[in-house]
């Protein structure tokens, strides 16, 4: 990727996370048992994106690189996001007050807590410091996708020329309008989307966009025999596929957080969705939380982090590359197969601790 992206994320005291550092890549998956903290990591990044939006309205940082003091955070969270040559440290206290600073990545972080004044919290503290450009480029406009078939099916107002091409929310609202906008902005892309759809779903002849009103679009598909299947009758799998297939044609965002991209998809379609996400990851960092070994099969070893809960210590993140015996195991198994072979759905001990598979 030729622009800054989140290469390292340290989270302390947030949700189930005591102190964890993740090494991320432009396309990256978090795997692990239920309730291990995968979604917490995604939420942390979305929170940071919100903090960043707030910070961008704040004054520029002082030359010493220290943020203005705010009230001392007790029971709060600390985040460190590293992108390109910069680390952005954000402290979020239990009352939602934020303090942040950017510093060169190869330096020790300045402690904002130690410098905090005890008497300056009466007004909720100042806005966070404006982050460095590396961080802005890596985080500003982060979007989450937790697709919902009802949202994907819903007709949606047209997207005027010049307006951003993106889903209206994390549920995928606006899918019909996006496909309509792709027609007017990049006809060849729309034709390619249609061709790919008919290749993968042979009974389908084309995407069908209807006008329930003069200002809204509805999506459906036209079958080989000419019959039109409206969105209400389309399979969830096809709707999910259409949503993911559209992603490479949307306006690039810095970071896309996707919960369970495999949801509702036939196993054979998962590779197609992952292909779309890999194309997206050329311009947009994509971070997935997944339970599917078939998703993991489409990734490289450095692109997968195993997330587990370690009792009192909270969440633990381990790159699959760093698990015992990985080199030998990876020569025998595809990556998702390796995970499945050694996972136990609880603490993933056979994967993280070595030894025979269960």
């Amino acid at each position, binding site marked *: 990727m030729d622009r800054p992206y989140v290469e390292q994320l340290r989270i302390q005291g947030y949700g189930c996370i005591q102190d964890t550092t993740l090494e991320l890549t432009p396309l990256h998956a978090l795997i692990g048992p239920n309730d291990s903290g995968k979604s917490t990591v995604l939420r942390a990044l979305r929170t940071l994106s919100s903090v960043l939006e707030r910070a961008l309205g704040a004054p520029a940082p002082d030359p010493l690189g220290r943020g203005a003091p705010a009230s001392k955070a007790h029971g709060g969270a600390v985040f460190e996001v590293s992108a390109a040559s910069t680390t952005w440290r954000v402290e979020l206290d239990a009352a939602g007050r934020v303090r942040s600073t950017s510093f060169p990545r190869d330096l020790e972080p300045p402690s904002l807590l130690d410098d905090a004044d005890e008497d300056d919290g009466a007004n909720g503290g100042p806005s966070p410091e404006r982050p460095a450009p590396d961080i802005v480029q890596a985080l500003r406009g982060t979007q989450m996708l937790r697709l919902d078939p009802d949202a994907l099916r819903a007709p949606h107002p047209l997207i005027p020329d010049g307006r951003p091409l993106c889903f209206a929310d994390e549920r995928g609202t606006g899918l019909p309008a996006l496909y309509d906008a792709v027609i007017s902005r990049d006809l060849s892309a729309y034709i390619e989307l249609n061709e790919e759809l008919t290749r993968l779903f042979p009974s389908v002849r084309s995407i069908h966009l209807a006008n329930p009103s003069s200002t809204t679009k509805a999506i459906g598909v036209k079958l080989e025999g000419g019959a039109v299947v409206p969105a209400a009758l389309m399979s969830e799998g096809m709707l999910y596929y259409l949503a993911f297939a559209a992603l490479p044609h949307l306006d690039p965002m810095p970071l896309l957080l996707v919960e369970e991209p495999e949801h509702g998809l036939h196993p054979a379609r998962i*590779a197609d969705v992952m292909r779309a996400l890999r194309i997206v990851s050329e311009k947009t960092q994509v971070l997935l939380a997944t339970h599917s070994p*078939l998703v993991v*099969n*489409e990734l490289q070893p450095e692109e997968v982090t195993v997330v587990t809960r370690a009792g009192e210590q909270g969440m633990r993140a381990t790159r699959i590359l760093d698990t015992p*015996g990985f*080199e*030998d*195991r990876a*020569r*025998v*198994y*595809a990556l*998702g*197969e390796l995970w*499945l*072979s050694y996972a136990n759905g609880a603490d993933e001990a056979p994967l993280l601790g*070595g*030894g*025979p*598979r*269960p």
Partner: protein
Amino acid sequence: MMKPLEKARVFLVGEGENELGSRAGAPAYQSDKHPGVLFTLLSRVQPNGWVVGGAREWKSIRKYQARGAAHEDTRHVLGAAIDAKEAGCDVLAFSRDIDRDPARREAIAEGIRRVSSSLSSPPEVIGGVAVPALEGWILALLGEKATEELSPLRAQAMLAAKGMMPGDGAALVRVAEDADLDAVPQDAASLAEWLARARAVLPRRTGRGVR
């Protein structure tokens, strides 16, 4: 004072109870209560100096594979080898029924070749296809000729005619216990190769001379 030799650990892989005896099934339920044909044959070759360090049925080796054009049995052998290695075993011993898949012989042979090239500190392998299936080996141990020309069903029928039903593992083990391993018909090549490999590997691994 000489340190006593540690016993070699052998990992067994087979189709089911006939090959593995009470070592068939999920690891938590395995025992050494009664042997299968593979253990018995290995014991005939080398009675002492080794123990069973683990066992699996072929069906429990992971089967789906998104990438790679290799025959699934090539990958099965690699999967069995890494299971053996991670169970701390020095030797992997297996038989795989060739059934009606002629490509399986080469796939298994390729898997065995890849064990040493793909894994660090790989186990030694005593393994190969049983032609046409384990029942063919039992017939050969009984002195029958041209067993590799039989279909699996025909081999089963011939054993049944001798009073051994397909699921009667104990009867198959008795044949393996009593057979003259040096009198295996030459045309039972898959069994002869397997025994030759066992004779080469086990004595070396157990620090004992060739029997």
